[in-house]
C-alpha cells in the first residue's frame, strides 16, 4: 500500500505560525505523525511521500496546491491519500479538505482526513469526503490515526462503510435506505406516544433549525447612539495585517477609522472570493459606509460613528464558524460601548 500524506507547517516540522506562508515541500517517506500513521496502517503500508505546506500559503493558493498534490500522488503511484489530522486548525482543515477532494476526484483513490467539529473544513467537505471526527485535542492523535487507518482499509478493500457513529466520521448528510424490523406504523405510534408522554424520542430525520434570536429593543434616541459598522465583505487595510482568509475566514479584524471621513481604495484591499470585488476595491465605502455615516454624525442624525469598523469574510463560512465569529465580535463591540450595528453583507 503506497500512501501519500499531507501535513501543514506545524505537523510537518517547519515551525509554528511564523511559517504559515511556507511554500509546498515534497519529502520522501513519512514525516512527523506520518510515521505513526504508517505503523497503524500495518504490514505492507508505506508513506512514500509527504507534502508539507504552510496554512496561509495553502488557503491563498488552494487550486495550485491541489494540482501539485494530485501530481505528486499520481507520480508516486499512491493507492491512498491521507491529510492531517487537522483537529481545530481551520486553515489546515480547509486545505486538507481541498487536496483530499482533488485527489479523490482526479485519481479515484480513497482519501481520508480528520478534523474537529468546529473546523470549517468539516462543513465544507463532509459531504464529499470521509472526515474522521478528531475532536479538538492533539493528544488524541494515536486514536484518531487508528480510526483513519481503519477507515482507509475499508475504503481500499471496497467494503461497505458503516454508519458515521460506527466508523467515527462526520455524516455526509446523505440518506441511505435500509430495512428495519419495525413497520412505519409501529415506529410512528411509538414515537408519538413518547412525545405525548414527555419521554425521549429520536426522530428519523432532523430539520436544520435556526433558533430565534431575541430582537433587542429599538434605539430610543438615534442622535445619541454610537453606531458601528461590521462587514463580511472582506474589506481590510492594505496588506491584510490580520491575515483574514478570503474563504471560510476563521478570524475577524477591527480597524481604526477615527478622524476618517472617507475610505480610499488605495488604503484598503478586499479578502473575499465570493463576489466581484472591484467595485468595493475602488471605493470601500460601498461596503463600509464611513463617508455617509460620518456626515450623519456631523449632522447630529446619529450620536457617534464608532471609531473602529469590524471586518471578516463571509464566503462559504460554515455555521459553526460564523456563530463563533459573531459572538466574539458582539462581545467586543459591547465592551466598546456600541449601541447599534449596521451589518453590511455581500
Amino acid at each position: 500500500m503506497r500512501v501519500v500524506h499531507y501535513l501543514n507547517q506545524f505537523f510537518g516540522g517547519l515551525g509554528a505560525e511564523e511559517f504559515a506562508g511556507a511554500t509546498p515541500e515534497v519529502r520522501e517517506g513519512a514525516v512527523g505523525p506520518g510515521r505513526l500513521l504508517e505503523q497503524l496502517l500495518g504490514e505492507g503500508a508505506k508513506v512514500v511521500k509527504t507534502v508539507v505546506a504552510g496554512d496561509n500559503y495553502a488557503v491563498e493558493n488552494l487550486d495550485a496546491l491541489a494540482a501539485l498534490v494530485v501530481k505528486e500522488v499520481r507520480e508516486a503511484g499512491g493507492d491512498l491519500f491521507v491529510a492531517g489530522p487537522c483537529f481545530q486548525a481551520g486553515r489546515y482543515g480547509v486545505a486538507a479538505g481541498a487536496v483530499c477532494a482533488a485527489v479523490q476526484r482526479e485519481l479515484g483513490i480513497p482519501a481520508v482526513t480528520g478534523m474537529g467539529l468546529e473546523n470549517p473544513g468539516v462543513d465544507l467537505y463532509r459531504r464529499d469526503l470521509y472526515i474522521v471526527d478528531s475532536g479538538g485535542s492533539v493528544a488524541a492523535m494515536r486514536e484518531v490515526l487508528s480510526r483513519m487507518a481503519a477507515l482507509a482499509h475499508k475504503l481500499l478493500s471496497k467494503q461497505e462503510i458503516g454508519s458515521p457513529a460506527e466508523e467515527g466520521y462526520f455524516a455526509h448528510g446523505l440518506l441511505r435506505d435500509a430495512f428495519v424490523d419495525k413497520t412505519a406504523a409501529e415506529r410512528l405510534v411509538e414515537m408519538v406516544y413518547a412525545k405525548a408522554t414527555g419521554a425521549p424520542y429520536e426522530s428519523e430525520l432532523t430539520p436544520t433549525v435556526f433558533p430565534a434570536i431575541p430582537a433587542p429593543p429599538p434605539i430610543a434616541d438615534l442622535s445619541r447612539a454610537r453606531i458601528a459598522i461590521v462587514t463580511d465583505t472582506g474589506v481590510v487595510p492594505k496588506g491584510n495585517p490580520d491575515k483574514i482568509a478570503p474563504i471560510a475566514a476563521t478570524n475577524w479584524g477591527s480597524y481604526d477609522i477615527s478622524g476618517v471621513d472617507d475610505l480610499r481604495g488605495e488604503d484598503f484591499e478586499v479578502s473575499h472570493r465570493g463576489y466581484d470585488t472591484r467595485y468595493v476595491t475602488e471605493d470601500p465605502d460601498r461596503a463600509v459606509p464611513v463617508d455617509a455615516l460620518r456626515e450623519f454624525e456631523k449632522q447630529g442624525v446619529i450620536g457617534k460613528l464608532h471609531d473602529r469598523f469590524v471586518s471578516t469574510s463571509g464566503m462559504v463560512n460554515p455555521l459553526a464558524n460564523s456563530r463563533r465569529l459573531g459572538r466574539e465580535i458582539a462581545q467586543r463591540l459591547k465592551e466598546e460601548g456600541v449601541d447599534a450595528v449596521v451589518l453590511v453583507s455581500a
Partner: protein
Amino acid sequence: MRLTLAIHPIEELRFGEATRLDGTTLAIDQEELRRLLLADGGLESVDLEVVRPGERCRFGAVFDVVEPRAKEPADGADFPGILGPLRLAGRGTTHVLRGAAVSVIQDGSAFGRVIEMSGAAGEASPYSRLHHLVVVPHPRASLPRRALMRALRVASLKAAVYLAKAALGQEASTYEVYECGGPAESATPGVPRLAYIGQIHSFQMVAEPDEPIFYGSNTIGMAPAALHPNEWLDGAIVSSYFNLGVETYFYQNHPIINELYRWQEEGKVLLTGTVATMAASDNRDRERNSMIAAALAKWNLAADAVVLTKYGGGAPHADMGLTARYCEELGIRTVVQVSDMSTDRSAESALLFNYPEVDAIVNVGRGDTLQWVAPEVERVIAASAGAAASLASLERLTAGSVCGVTGQQGLSRLRSFVY
C-alpha cells in the same frame, strides 16, 4: 360503534364448478364471476388466474389489491356509494377471506408496480404470502379514460365481494372486534388520546368526476372529515385511480389504525378517531384543509397526539407538515411519516417543510435506491403480450416498484438513515 371481522383463513384458491368455501379452500366458478364482471358493459372480456404464495410469478401493472370481504347483509352495504347504497361503514359483522386477495391488472403505466411472488423482492412484501385471484380486465377499445378506470375500480370491488360472499352463513375461524369509544370516552391520566389524520387523495392528480374515493365521491370540494377508525377498515375509502404506494387492501388492513387499536387494547392509549383529508393543489386550500383538520383533531376528537400520513408525491408533504404545525399550535403532539423526496439524497434537502415543532418524523426513504436482482419467473401475468414480455425480462426491481414494500399506509419496513 363496533365492527366484527369474521375471519375465514384461506389456504387454497382454485377454480371449480361452483363458488364455495370448504374449510380453508375457496372454489371459484369462473364463468359466474366473469358474467358478473362483464355485466356493466365496460369490459369486453376478462381473464382470471389464480396465483399461489411463493410461486415464481410476477404480475402487473397493478391497479389495486382488495381483500375479499362481504358484510352481513343486515349490517350495512359493501363499498357504500360504489357498489351499494350509502350506509355508514364500520358496524356489524364483515366476513373476511384472510390470506386471499383480488389483484387487478391494468395496462402498463409509467408508475406501474408489480407484485412479485418469490425471491428477496417477494419476501419484502406481504402480498407474496397471499393467494391471489388475478383479474385482467380488457376494457372496450373505445372507452374514454374515466370509464375505463371506473370499470377497473368496479371490477376489483365486485370480484372481492363476490368471493367473500361464499363465507356468508359460515362459522368463522376467529373474530376480531374493533371498538373504540370515540372522543366522548373519558380520559385517564397517563393514557394519551390519539387520533390519525390521513390524506386520502392528492389534487396533484385530477380525479375523474365519477372516480370513487370517499363513500363513492371523488373528494373534490370536500373539507376534511372526521371518521370513525372502522370506516377506513370497512369500505368507506378506496385508493384513487392513480396513486403512489396505496392499495385498498391496506385501507381494509390499515397498519396505523390497527397499531393504534393494539395500543388501545394494551391500555396505553385511547383511540379517539380519525380525520380524512386531501392534499391541495393551491395554497389557500392547503391552508384551509390544514386548519380544519387540526381543529377537528382538537375540538371534535379531543386528541392529545396525532399520527399523520400523506398521499401522492412530494408536495403533499407540505400539506401534512402544515397540518401538523397547526396541531402543535393547538397543543396536540404530532408525528409524521415522510418519504425522501430529495433529488440529491441530502438530509438537508429531504424535508419539504421546516417547522421546529414538527420534530417527530418517521422517514420511509425513497424506494428507488434499494434494489434486488429480479428473480427468475415461470409465469408472468399482464394486460398484453408486450407488457408480459417486459415484465418477464426485468433484471432489477427497485423497492418502490414492488407493491407492498414502500407503501404510504404505514406498512413499510424501510427506513432512511443519514450517512
